[in-house]
């Protein structure tokens, strides 16, 4: 860890806070350790136990993102909020991953996704210098860089392409698994040479907590975008789901899929569903991997270079 990188990180944190404070967005801190966790079948939480003292023992999750608590604040009328805080994802360690990382997440009540996109670009211009942004739908990017339509191509054909691209035993991959593989093996490498790219209109099956609409070709797509810089996935944004019943349904579907994958069930956040019932304002929200942003600002090749003590150096 170089002193120059420590200083750069501190500058970026300070500039980020200044950016939001000057725009009237309130900084908040929500629990990192909580009795409900992310049910996302593709995210694994660290699970621990509250015990001792006078409290009954209780299962607790280190949060994979501050999303649920921030939405509960929004439902209580907080207005626009942002948070800079640690998040935890089990089993993720690589040049671009660390089990603990710093997340920047913010929400804009009454904002459309396009407005949030403009603000996200303004923030990156502020922190990394001004540059142009290319926009491509998920479909356009797949046609251009993978050579197939992600909505129309048959599963058999997707699997054949996966085998050709990566040698994987593709029989066990479902449709989204195939698309994830092609995204990481073909699309992301192609994005390396394109600077800042906004990828939007993901398949509805990859909506997570985003609303769903139809694209120009009648495909159901998620109101979601991801921002890539030089092939590095930096930000993920949603037009947030506000329907309590739909949220409850997705929690249940997630846990059913977890069961199918042989993964433990996760306690879903009933209070989030209750908050949505009470009324979450229409809003858009976005999460940015802050360590990756520091990586780009320092021209570093790995997360390890920009974290004070990564898991490689605990």
């Amino acid at each position: 860890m170089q002193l120059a990188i420590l200083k750069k990180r501190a500058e970026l944190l300070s500039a980020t806070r200044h950016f939001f404070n000057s725009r009237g967005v309130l900084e908040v801190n929500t629990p990192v350790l909580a009795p409900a966790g992310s049910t996302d079948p593709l995210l694994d939480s660290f699970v621990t136990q509250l015990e001792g003292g006078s409290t009954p023992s209780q299962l607790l999750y280190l949060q994979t993102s501050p999303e649920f608590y921030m939405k509960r604040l929004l439902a209580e009328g907080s207005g626009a909020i942002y948070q800079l805080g640690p998040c935890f994802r089990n089993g993720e360690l690589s040049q671009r991953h660390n089990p603990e990382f710093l997340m920047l997440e913010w929400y804009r009540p009454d904002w459309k996704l396009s407005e949030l996109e403009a603000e996200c670009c303004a923030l990156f211009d502020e922190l990394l210098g001004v540059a142009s942004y290319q926009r491509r739908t998920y479909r356009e990017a797949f046609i251009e860089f993978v050579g197939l339509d992600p909505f129309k191509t048959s599963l058999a054909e997707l699997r054949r392409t996966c085998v050709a691209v990566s040698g994987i035993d593709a029989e066990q991959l479902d449709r989204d698994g195939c698309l994830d593989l092609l995204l990481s093996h073909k699309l992301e490498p192609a994005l390396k040479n394109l600077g800042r790219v906004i990828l939007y209109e993901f398949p509805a099956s990859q909506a997570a907590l985003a609303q769903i609409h139809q694209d120009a070709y009648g495909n159901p797509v998620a109101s979601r975008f991801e921002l890539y810089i030089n092939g590095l996935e930096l930000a993920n944004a949603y037009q947030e789901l506000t329907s309590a019943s739909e949220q409850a349904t997705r929690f249940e579907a997630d846990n059913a899929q977890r069961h199918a994958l042989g993964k433990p069930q996760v306690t879903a956040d009933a209070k989030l569903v209750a908050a949505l019932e009470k009324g979450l304002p229409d809003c858009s929200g976005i999460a940015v991997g802050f360590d990756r942003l520091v990586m780009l600002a320092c021209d570093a090749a790995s997360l390890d270079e920009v974290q004070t003590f990564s898991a490689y150096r605990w």
Partner: protein
Amino acid sequence: MANYATNEFKGGLKFMLDGDPCSMLDIEHIKPGKGQAFTRVKFRNLSTGRVGEKTFKVGENVEAADVMDTDMEYLYTDGEFWHFMKTDGSFEQIGADAKALGDTSKWLKEQEVYLVTLYNGAPISVTAPNFIVLPVAETDPGLKGDTAQGGSKPATLPTGAVVRVPLFVNEGDLLKIDTRTGEYVSRA
């Protein structure tokens, strides 16, 4: 044989792929923020020497390969097999065929110790030490006075290997050679 799951993958791990023993060179964890995780492995096929890549779904297993690296001293060849002896005091001998020997035939020298890779007890590859000293069997006469700079010329070794050497090198000189690049290092 044991299995290894993706979270046990590491450089040097020997595993079976399509019937061939392979050694992992580089492992990369791939995970989109909202997507499935994969493990991409760069490996060397120990039978063919070729380097390849294959992606695994996280949680997938590979079969361990019964592969062992052993230090062995080169003894002699009978024309069909090249015979090596273990240096662990057992004096156990093993014959490697031309395929297992591969390019290492260029750097063979009696009483030198080589790394012999055994698969199911049989040799599949032989690796020379990084540096080896061999005499010059044949080269154009050396030029007196030209000891430092100037061009180079080919020199043939007793093994048949040809290396580029400085002009001052003579027949019978002992040469130190880097076996990884096949390049002359110095006179020994």
